[in-house]
């Protein structure tokens, strides 16, 4: 399955059908942010464009916007984060996923970085 990364330190992993992408923040971002104390999730059904703010996390007095890596529609959000925002720190690229998005144009993903490129990307 395809997993891509953005310069905003978010990841998106496409499902087997290459239609629904799960998004979240990267290991690097979760370390840089510190302990997450609150997560603002988008509403399911929200239509968003690539680069638009779809949510936010607060950590160590910092409010950080989360930008959608692709254009699409939010189909699911990780409600666990409302109750346990710290899950983002424990498993940012696993249980700490942020939302699922039905991707309008899968070609948008080609503009994003693969793991190798993201690891080499100057942070």
């Amino acid at each position: 399955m395809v997993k891509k990364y953005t310069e905003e330190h978010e990841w998106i992993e496409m499902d087997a059908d290459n239609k629904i992408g799960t998004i979240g923040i990267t290991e690097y971002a979760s370390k840089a942010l510190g302990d997450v104390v609150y997560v603002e999730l988008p509403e399911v059904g929200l239509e968003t464009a690539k680069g638009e703010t779809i949510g936010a996390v607060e950590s160590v007095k910092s409010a950080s916007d989360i930008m959608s890596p692709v254009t699409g529609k939010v189909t699911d959000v990780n409600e666990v984060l409302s109750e346990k925002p710290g899950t983002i720190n424990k498993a940012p690229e696993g249980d700490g996923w942020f939302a699922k998005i039905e991707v309008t144009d899968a070609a948008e993903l080609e503009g994003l970085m693969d793991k190798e490129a993201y690891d080499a990307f100057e942070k």
Partner: protein
Amino acid sequence: MDASVRLHLLKSCISYATHDHVRKSGHRASMPPKALLLTSQPSLRNVVSRAWRAATSITPYQTSCFKPNKNWTLRSIDHGARPYSAKTKPTVSAVLKNIKDHTAENIVSIFHSRSNNPYHNLAIENYLLRNSHAQSKILLFYTNRPCVVIGRNQNPWLECNIAKIQEGLPWNAADWDDGVLDNDRHVIAEERDGYNVSLDLVRRRSGGGTVIHDVGNLNFSFIVPNDKDFTRDKHAELIVRALMAPMTVTRFRDHVLYDNVHVNQRHDIVMTCANVDGGNTQKEFKVSGSAFKLTRGRALHHGTILHSSPNINRQVFVAGDEGGQVAASVFSALLSSPAKPFLEAKGVGSVRSPVHNLFDVTDQVQRREVVRSLRKEIGQLFMDVNGMGDISVEEVGDEDCAVDMNGEIYRDAQELMTDDWRFCQTPTFEYRSEDAGGALKMRFQVKHGLIQNASLEHVELDAEQQLKFAGLEGKKLHEIQSWTSCLPPHAGFRHAKACAHLETVFPKIQPAGAAREGGAESTIIQEADLSGSNQDGIAVKRKAPGGRIELERGGENVVVER
């Protein structure tokens, strides 16, 4: 403007000033009376200004005159307090309009907002964050009128005493500095004994906890690339260096209250001082709180510098635990929530810390000196660390927030003032009155401001009907005007007691930026009251009992004293 109206206004200004001076002789006047001089003719303005000063025996630097420019945006004329940089430009709206180009050409730049309107300052700041060049580094200074500012993900019911904020503080002209006249269209220029001025309750866009702002608090805001050079302590350390600079410490040596300042683990600046309160022990106090906003590769670090708040040692009366009134410090009165025992909330709570002024300065002129010196010192350090030379400062202000100047700033300020932003952005919370004096056992949740899932014990109804019974169906908590008319009487609980409790916990909310004169209701006056006033596009909006008159021209509010 019609000449007769203009003269009428000017005459009333002068006679008011003279009268006021006589009335105040022998009376402790912490500030001379002021008024707004309204004329488009410089020669006439100077005549009036001189007559004014003669009548009130005040020195030029204490006078603030204001002239509507040809577009009728207000601009201050400050006789004595010159901007600290010769390069300061008088009109800067063009700079903000072309901020991307400006910050591309000036990769390091400093702004100083003359506004004391918290919504305007936050909107200007957000505009700089979102529109400046991606690699630019910006420092912005501002001082807000007295207000309580909560963090992005905080609960106003839980963090502060909303009733006390709305009730406000006893008016004292010196608390508002001269800034109140040029920045705040609700001009209150005279010491008004017996009047309270209510405070703004503001939600900012950055994280963190609740802070109180007033004239003794300088706000700094660093906007830089969110790259590997950026740390949460970087700019706090710069503030520390400015506070410890020989320039600061020696210049104000008779007033400096700290022995040392440093950045603590919470990225706040604390001061240590030996002989505070006459004791010999070394004590630590918070003097600066930080908060951050990170977006699209940019980082904003803003914070407060508590240099000389006049409110820090003031006390006000609050309701005591056992009835009656007890004295409490202003800060703790504003921040102690009557709702706290009854709320369970998600989101971000504040960490309470003892605070202290950095300088022992009570005089307005000295306070301005301290602020100017701090701005200069911090500004120079900011230039130095970024390898730049002399400071050049762009002044911004309320005029930049006008709808026809910068629509984006205007709309942002308007959004910050909505109850949707101030209240509905509160993370979900639950109210539970298990222990409200036996009056009523009630629960409900509030999500996006909307009351949900009410349940009242002793009222035997289905779950979904309880919300309706309680008069809360489809209601937003902050929109409830009266609990008595909401909640119907019922045999299961004591109605009056229940309502009294709910009105204490969730008081009626005033709109943001409402006229801030506690108890002084304005009355509408007829246009005929100022004959000819509707000529030349001027409309009288209202006249307050104290003699305040609001005029409107071209969508701009202009305020005249008596």
